[in-house]
């Protein structure tokens, strides 16, 4: 199966772009990151079987790309967060909460824990739903999130850390 990249972009581009805006909170970075996702997908296009939903693997690929971006920003000590014009969000957290959460999870967690935290707190996935994307059971996801909560307790507001 060979996907046409422009067709994929027309169908899923808004989903990928808005996710990049949510995680990167910078318009130019969001546009670049969204393009990078589709170009990476294009390069790997012969590897995709027809059974998985494009929305699912695009969601994973976008999360992974944005995490790389954020790690690069931290290494370069860039402060790239900018005032985006207010718009209603489809995320479960507002922009300030997202940034605080990302700061905490980028501090010392491994990538799968970072993704689990984002899927659960930002996207509102249950442990089982997050586990499906990560190839983990729901209990393993709960454990990773609990570990993160312990380590981030001092840095994040109590209501964010409520057991869900």
């Amino acid at each position, binding site marked *: 199966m060979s996907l046409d990249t422009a067709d994929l972009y027309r169908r899923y581009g808004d989903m990928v772009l*808005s996710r990049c805006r949510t995680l990167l909170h910078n318009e130019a970075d969001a546009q670049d*990151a969204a393009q990078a996702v589709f170009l990476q997908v294009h*390069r790997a296009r012969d590897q995709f079987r027809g059974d998985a939903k494009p929305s699912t693997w695009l969601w994973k690929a976008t999360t992974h790309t944005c995490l790389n971006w954020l790690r690069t920003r931290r290494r370069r000590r860039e402060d790239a967060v900018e005032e985006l014009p207010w718009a209603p969000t489809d995320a479960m957290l507002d922009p300030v909460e997202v940034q605080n959460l990302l700061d905490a999870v980028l501090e010392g967690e491994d990538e799968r824990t970072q993704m689990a935290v984002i899927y659960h707190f930002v996207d509102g996935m249950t442990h089982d*739903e997050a586990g499906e994307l990560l190839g983990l059971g729901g209990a393993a996801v709960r454990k990773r999130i609990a570990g993160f909560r312990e380590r981030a307790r001092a840095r994040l507001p109590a209501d964010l850390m409520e057991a869900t």
Partner: protein
Amino acid sequence: MSHLSTLALHQLRLGELASDDAAAAEAHLAACERCRRRADAQQAQRAAFEAAPVPPAILAASAPANRPWPRWIASVVAVAAAAMIGVSLAWGPHPETTRIKGDMPEIELWVRSDAGVRVVHAGEKLGPGDVVQVKYATDGAAYAILAGRDQTGEIEVYGEVPLHADLAEAPFALTLDGTPGTQEFFLVTGRDRFDADAARAAIRGEREDLDVRDVSVGKEPW
């Protein structure tokens, strides 16, 4: 009360949920104002997205029917390079390159032989009459120029090249003449259109907003 995940909202909107899951999601939306607002936000993002053009780099990665460019005509440019002596191939990011986030543009050197076009290897001899072909990928850039520089140090801008997400041949081939020396090739890319002077400045390391990749063919002592 647990809510629909952001991904589930997208999948519902796109018709990608199994019918049971879709029915459950619709039922939740009917009862949950917060998720209805999130779904409305996605509709608004969709409308704004549809009004914007597809980025050129994405169109370049697409099937030829999607591309708006005219055919390019190959032209041949005589170039000074190492002749009948060992050549070393050095390639990689130009020392003064600004790092681009994500994947990188690339440039490679190939040579035309009787068997077809193949990549030039380190230590290979190239001689007068050999035709070298530059292959390049512009990744996410919106505009790209190819240029060259021989041992005199003067930068020659060959011109704008079409965008390609995958490695593709430059629209012109270059024939080597007998003058010994070093020949470099540069791929200069940027987010906006830029001119030949800007390309030269970028090659000299003076432009942080443009990315430069280079490959060179030079002489090595026996």
